[in-house]
């Protein structure tokens, strides 16, 4: 037969073509090693699907530790700066490809989870609206706290989201790059969920403004988010070291400020003000927080902090970074204390003692999960006290 086949004839189904193909296919497979990436060191017992599909996709040379390629870059930036280089971070690693998302999510698994969350969100909102829950929300909470301050908090999430762009460009490993993009996407998702909640409320509550104008004014000019705004701006735009961006955002700022605002303010208080809607969204953010925490603690504690060659140095650097970013985060929280002035006080819930207890919880969690592993000495009681001085 002719070797030129057209008209969309397919070798799998066209008998004439199939016969030629089958005559050429070897009688038994030529290679017995059928496992892709068999050569790599898996995190667990075996190379899993995530590791097969993600690991060693990074084409860096071996002078960037972990790389399998050799030689120089084929094209560089104007002036000769290399495509990727060890100088892009102060951290040192003996293998930049060592990180794993503890949940082993490659793209398909990541989007599958989020797709389910979206479908469920849609069903939840329909049931919530049909049920008339919205009637029970305290009007001050609804119009001022959700309308203005939750909206303003959306800018915090959006700013942190943008801090991931240069990380995605500059970081030195494949799994690092994919994880950074995913935790970045979760942050913009948070900002979008906040806007979705406000748009939803505007459909149910005539006159509730869905516009971002007032929240943006609150974020850019108000006093409650001043410290947070300056902090986020610095993480997003004033920091060039991609590890420092991830560390400041996910190991200091978000586990303290983000956790307090989401978990201890919006999530805990909302039900007291008759609001069962906000917890639905905040709980999704908390899920993302915990997944992100798994990722970034793997990066900083499991990989960099215990690196055989550079572990001590890395931990020292992380402590120096903590010294730099912790006071700004504490200051952001202190400014945020101003929010309690805007809501009707509920005894045992939003009074000073309750706020202090909430702060103690957040700082204790942070100390256990983020400070202790890098041997960072911190007086959390003093920090709580500083934050509380922001209460009017």
């Amino acid at each position: 037969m002719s070797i030129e086949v057209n008209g969309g004839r397919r070798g799998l189904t066209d008998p004439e073509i199939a016969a030629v193909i089958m005559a050429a296919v070897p009688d038994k497979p030529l290679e017995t090693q059928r496992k892709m990436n068999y050569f790599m060191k898996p995190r667990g017992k075996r190379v899993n699907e995530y590791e097969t599909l993600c690991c060693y996709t990074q084409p860096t040379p071996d002078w960037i530790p972990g790389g399998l390629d050799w030689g120089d870059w084929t094209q560089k930036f104007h002036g000769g700066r290399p495509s990727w280089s060890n100088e892009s971070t102060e951290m040192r690693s003996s293998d930049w490809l060592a990180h794993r998302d503890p949940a082993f999510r490659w793209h398909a698994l990541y989007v599958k989870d989020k797709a389910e969350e979206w479908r469920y969100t849609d069903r939840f909102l329909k049931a919530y609206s049909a049920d008339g829950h919205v009637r029970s929300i305290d009007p001050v909470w609804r119009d001022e706290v959700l309308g203005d301050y939750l909206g303003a908090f959306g800018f915090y999430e959006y700013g942190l989201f943008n801090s991931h762009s240069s990380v995605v460009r500059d970081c030195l490993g494949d799994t690092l790059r994919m994880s950074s993009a995913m935790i970045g996407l979760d942050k913009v998702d948070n900002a979008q969920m906040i806007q979705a909640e406000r748009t939803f409320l505007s459909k149910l509550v005539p006159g509730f403004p869905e516009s971002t104008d007032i929240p943006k004014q609150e974020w850019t000019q108000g006093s409650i988010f001043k410290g947070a705004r300056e902090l986020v701006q610095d993480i997003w735009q004033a920091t060039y070291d991609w590890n420092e961006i991830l560390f400041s955002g996910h190991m200091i700022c978000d586990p303290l400020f983000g956790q307090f605002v989401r978990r201890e303010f919006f999530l805990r208080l909302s039900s007291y003000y008759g609001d069962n809607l906000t917890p639905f969204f905040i709980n999704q953010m908390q899920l993302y927080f915990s997944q992100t925490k798994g990722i970034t603690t793997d990066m900083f504690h499991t990989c960099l902090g215990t690196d055989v060659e550079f572990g001590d140095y890395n931990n020292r650097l992380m402590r120096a970074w903590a010294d730099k970013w912790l006071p700004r985060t504490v200051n952001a929280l202190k400014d945020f204390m101003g929010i309690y002035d805007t809501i009707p006080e509920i005894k045992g819930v939003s009074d000073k003692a309750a706020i202090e207890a909430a702060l103690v919880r957040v700082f204790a969690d942070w100390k256990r999960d983020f400070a202790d592993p890098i041997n960072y000495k911190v007086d959390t009681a003093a920090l709580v006290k500083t934050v509380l001085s922001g209460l009017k």
Partner: protein
Amino acid sequence: MAISAATKAATDALAANPAPVSVGAQEVHRWMQSFTWDFDKNRTKYSTKYKMANDTKEQFKLIAKEYARMESVKDERQFGSLQDVLTRVDAANRVHPKWNESMKVISNFLEVGEYNAIAATGMLWDSATAPEQKNGYLGQVLDEIRHTNQCGYINYYFAKQGQDAAGHNDARRTRAIGPLWKGMKRVFSDGFISGDAVECSINLQLVGEACFTNPLIVAVTEWASANGDEMTPTVFLSIETDELRHMANGYQTVVSIANDEAASKYLNTDLNNAFWTQQKYFTPVLGMMFEYGSHFKVEPWVKTWNRWVYEDWGGIWIGRLGKYGVESPRSLRDAKKDAYWAHHDLFLIAYALWPTGFFRLSLPTPEEAEWYEANYPGWYDMYGKVYDEWRARGCEDPSSGFLPIQWFIENNHPIYIDRVSQVPFCPSYCKGESTLRVLEFNGKKHSFSDQWGERMWLSEPERYECQNIFEQYEGRELSEVIAEGFGLRSDGKTLISQPHTNKDGKLWTLDDIKKINCVFSDPLKAL
């Protein structure tokens, strides 16, 4: 509205209409543009000579969750087909062996392009100022992770299910040995991520995606299915569904800088350089993979090239950008000349260097020779007779002691590498446009094969300093280089690469290569 009045209104509204309400993706997206705010330090970390406009819109209006929903639907279909019916009918063992080999390269090299596109679009997400434009690039970041995983999945699937796993199972480790890798890095890796951010976008989206990878992805599916491969179309067509958004991103990039003064000065030069960069590698490599890496042919590469690169891209796509001052690249005409012979020239070299590959290559069969001659008159006199000679000298047989690279040496046809594109060429034996130019800089010699690359190097030599494989391997014996680069199968002695795909043919071992004692030398040293 006063607070209590709002509560009453909500109650009344609910009483009048208790219908379930939700929020759609676009209702959220329409606020995206207001998500950012001005502050001092708000500027990109990657310099560009262009200024991207603050109000650039994006047409797909996705939010994170809707993006995930859309992609996960496509994933279900795609992975469902692969894991279910295609596995049951043993589809991976019903692929022509030559094509099985081509997919080792195509899927892995495309994976590198996809992977680097993650970083490239990360940079563009950083560079753009308009939140909608950032959002468009963000979607692409995630897509490119998807595509990286999908390309990997093809090799993973072929390794697990197919007829020859070697090369599919370890391409990420062995790909760096051979002569095609560095050139691939120029177009698919560094060209996307290292440079002026807009220049990188032009390389990636305006040329890489709009001109080459989309045709590549679509054409590949036709060649694949003709050769019995239904896995590749299943995956690549699913990749393709995301590409429309990427081309739109490229289009929006141009729109966002159109009113900037810098655009009138630099845009066409950047486009011309990007086009030449991309075509210099893709034109010969794609043509070679299709025509020499298949048994059943779909159409001559030169026809595909003329239709997709010259007419559709150079004419229609660039034409649409004409209102923004974009012109068809000046180098397009030279590229068109190359599209006829360049892939034949390259295969001659690639075959001669077969031991450095991570795939098996095959000499054209008599019926293929006939097809080449019919479609490229003059083919036999230049290439066909050389292949006949190599075959007669036993180049397929491990006991022959003959490697075709020896033919180049015996006949005094040195193979050089173009410093800028890293593509090998043989100026004394080629029908394509390559000519040898040698320049010296800082005590080091550099060879070039065309004026466009030479110009890029002349204006910025510090961007193209990468040593080539001959400089790297100089003085080293071939079997040593192969062993060091992990070019062996799991028995520890048979090469992954082979000069044939005959099922009854003998396989070469490292010892067979060692016996020949082939030592690399750098042709620039001889000048």
